């Protein structure tokens, strides 16, 4: 009932005054499009796999960031190994190529940023 009166009110308003549709409650997240209950376990697995793939991409292309992160950790025997491994991995990725993508992208970006009239 409340929804009906809201819709009626809405239609009386001009285009520029209409209430935003994006504020409606997100019912689509309660059930899948077909109306059946979603398979949460399977969806969670898909999401986890996607996140792991994202981590893998970072491991390949953001080796400098991994070096920084390892050095940010508190110093002990374990983190020493991590720092060592991060440095070695960074060296390998630099030689193989992926680690050079970041600086190249950054260079192009800085060129764009530095443009002037």
């Amino acid at each position, binding site marked *: 009932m409340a929804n009906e009166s809201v819709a009626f009110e809405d239609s009386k308003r001009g285009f520029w005054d209409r209430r935003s549709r994006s504020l409606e409650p997100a019912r689509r997240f309660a059930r899948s499009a077909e109306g059946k209950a979603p398979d949460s376990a399977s969806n969670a697995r898909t999401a986890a796999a996607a996140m792991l793939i994202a981590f893998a991409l970072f491991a390949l292309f953001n080796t400098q960031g991994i*070096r920084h992160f390892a050095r940010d950790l508190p*110093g002990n025997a374990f983190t*020493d190994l991590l720092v*060592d491994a991060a440095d070695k991995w960074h060296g390998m990725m630099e030689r193989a190529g992926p680690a050079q993508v970041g600086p190249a992208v950054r260079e192009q970006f800085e060129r764009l940023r530095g443009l002037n009239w």
Partner: protein
Amino acid sequence: MFSPRFAFFAFLTLALALSTPVEARPVSVAVVGDSLANDLGNGMEDIFAGKPVRVIKQTKFATGLVRTDYFNWNATVRNALQHGDANILVVVIGGNDHQAIRVNGRRLDPLSNAWRAEYARRVAHFMKTVKHSRAKLYWVGLPDVRSPKLARGYRAMNQIFKREAAKHGFAYVDIWNKFHAPDGAYSSFGKSLEGVKRRIRKEDGMHFTEPGRKLFAAYVARAIGLR
């Protein structure tokens, strides 16, 4: 022609010219370092507003002499000092350096003997590189901070700065207890330049608020002869 009266007035004019305060001659101060240097630079801009003192900030947040993987001051300091016409150069650095130094595959824990030796070496290298500019050189020590652990570290690092400054022609400016409470302990509040108690340190217990920056700049300005 060279009557006593003339000589007298010539002498007076010369005396007046020589006693011109430093402010009347254009001065260029370069402030180099980390976020504390930035605070100092901002404070100087405030207190020298309208005066013939130019403040050039060459600061980079979250940097130091320890984490060369992140930013290498020693490698870039010569390029960073682009304005070679600064007549005074002030360095404030070290706020982010209370952490392990990793060099040649070894980890040196903060304030250990090996760490102090390596840190002193890095400070010396930095000072030697900076010396190539023709400016008068000042090194400002770190101020006291709220965290007791950091305060201990900073006190030790200030000893290193003082020693190396003496060796490499830098004048050392000690501001350690300039912001203390009357009982000598750390306080985020203190007498501002207006003469009343204000908040001079930010919530993080380290950086300076607006009144704090002006106070910081005023102390340093006095130490370097600009006030």
